[in-house]
């Protein structure tokens, strides 16, 4: 009998702590499958972050570093400069990368740092209990925007891919979503391409994954998937914003 489906080797056999309907688990799995398929488990080192994704350091069965809040791309820079032949990636949420860590990802990209950022955008702070993220949509209610995000108070949601695209050091920038099987297959292809571009030494790569947070959005998992599709994607259009080398998706 042929085994059709199993846990990727790059993921440990321990239960995720994520809430029902959260897409972190899917994102972890996609990254792990890509590492397995590219056969780079022994040469890949990941940098974890602060937020719901802090446990990535335990879940991935590869060498991992715990990074401080927002500094993943700086930590990855130090690591990669010492070990340029290894594959180095960060796994960061929107609070980590797009708020406190804004300086680090932009400058890693401007330097053309040969690393990959896996960036989870779920439009909310998960770990700390549902506060506004830099990516929270206008009108979206969170614990710190109880009347909905007001542009006159909190400004506008940040679009990371659009910021990165004009930077010369950025080799691959793509936004994908995890709300249905078709999108998930595309997301995996994008993650794989980002890693391949790093292996080719072409420069900085980032894949933004639009993700769900049913708990902090106050929705059922199904409602959350629908909300992602109907509200997030129109503001955060999907696609490859920039690609240097490699074929199209």
């Amino acid at each position, binding site marked *: 009998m042929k085994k059709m489906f199993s846990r990727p080797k790059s993921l440990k056999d321990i239960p995720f702590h994520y809430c029902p309907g959260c897409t972190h688990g899917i994102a972890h799995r996609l990254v792990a499958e890509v590492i397995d398929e590219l056969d780079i488990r022994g040469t890949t080192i990941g940098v974890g972050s602060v937020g719901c994704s802090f446990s990535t350091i335990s879940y991935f069965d*590869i*060498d991992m570093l*715990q*990074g*401080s809040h927002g500094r993943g791309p700086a930590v990855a820079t130090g*690591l990669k*400069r010492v*070990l340029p032949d290894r594959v180095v990636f960060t796994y960061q949420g929107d609070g980590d990368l797009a708020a406190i860590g804004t*300086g680090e990802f932009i400058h890693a990209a401007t330097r053309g740092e040969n690393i990959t950022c896996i960036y989870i955008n779920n439009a909310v702070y998960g770990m700390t209990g549902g506060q506004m993220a830099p990516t929270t949509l206008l009108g979206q209610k969170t614990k710190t925007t109880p009347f909905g995000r007001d542009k006159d108070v909190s400004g506008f949601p940040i679009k990371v891919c659009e910021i990165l695209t004009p930077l010369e050091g950025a080799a691959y920038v793509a936004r994908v979503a995890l709300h249905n099987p078709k999108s998930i297959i595309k997301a995996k292809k994008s993650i794989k391409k980002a890693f391949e571009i790093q292996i080719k030494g072409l420069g900085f790569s980032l894949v933004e994954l639009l993700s769900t947070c049913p708990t902090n959005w106050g929705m059922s998992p199904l409602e959350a998937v629908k909300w992602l599709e109907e509200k997030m994607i129109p503001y955060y259009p999907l696609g490859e914003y920039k690609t240097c080398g490699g074929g199209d998706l």
Partner: protein
Amino acid sequence: MKGNDAIGEGAVRAGCRYFFGYPITPQSELTHYLAKRLPEVGGLFLQAESEVASINMVYGASAAGARVMTSSSGPGISLMQEGLSYLAGAELPCVVVNMMRGGPGLGNIAPSQADYFQATKGGGHGDYRLIVLAPNSVQELFDMMLKAFDLADKYRNPVMVMADGIMGQMMEPVIIRDEYEVQIPPKPWAATGMAYHEGKNLINSCYVIPDEMEIHNLELQKKYNEIRPREQVCEDFMLEGAEVVLVAFGTASRICMKVVEKARDKGIPVGLIRPITLWPFPEKYIGEAAGGDKIFLTVEMNMGQMIEDVKLAVNGKAPVYHYGRLGGILPDARDVLTEVERLYRGGGAR
């Protein structure tokens, strides 16, 4: 050699091949030196976008097993405190140079010793320690870089070299010992990829379960308790028969040597103890020196920081006073001598 250059050359001779930093006066010459020197030996000098990024690049490079350093001053060192806490928590070796300048706030670029508390008592969050070295000559700046990297690797702990603007700018002859052999210990814990070692290596300071966090803390404390008695270093100057004992480090200790000579010429029995390690503080030596009717006077370029450790070391066996100048002003040997004479004649606290 200029002090800042001596630090750079000392680091290179110690086998350091990676420097990540951000310009700030009065340590910029060190970055100029290493930007030229490191590529000559196959190393990397990288100017980061901030001190926050610098210290986190140091974290990444150290986790990869490299000998790595950064340097800064006052405000920049403050920005690095979170990173230093992470480095200490994850037990990553590195060397950080602080060319102290006047504070608080933006302060000024003049020499100061006001970062003593920050370096020796934590600075960042959590129960951790840095090993802190305090050179007082350009030769020592050079030699201490060799020692700093060895200590960092030996204990898997960040080491801070504390000097000030004067030390960095000062020019003095330096004897470079050619016989120094760099011995970088193996780092089987480094996160170099699972193909390069057995199993998974995790560089981490996060323990969600309180029991595990406590165990990690107790292990750190065990290490600090090993370092504390073993690595205390100080030297004394004309301490024999001294009734007034000056305690000073770095630039202030050089001024105090002059004070001791002048006082002895006047027949006042004065000596000096110079802590060379600020953490661990040379409490044993100072404690043993405190006896009889001695008076202690700490001379610092701050409002009285090291005096707290001197008082702990003396433990009530002698009165301990402080003399300090602030804002980048050096203590004048004549003024210190006046204070010594006043105390010697029973002047007591002001």
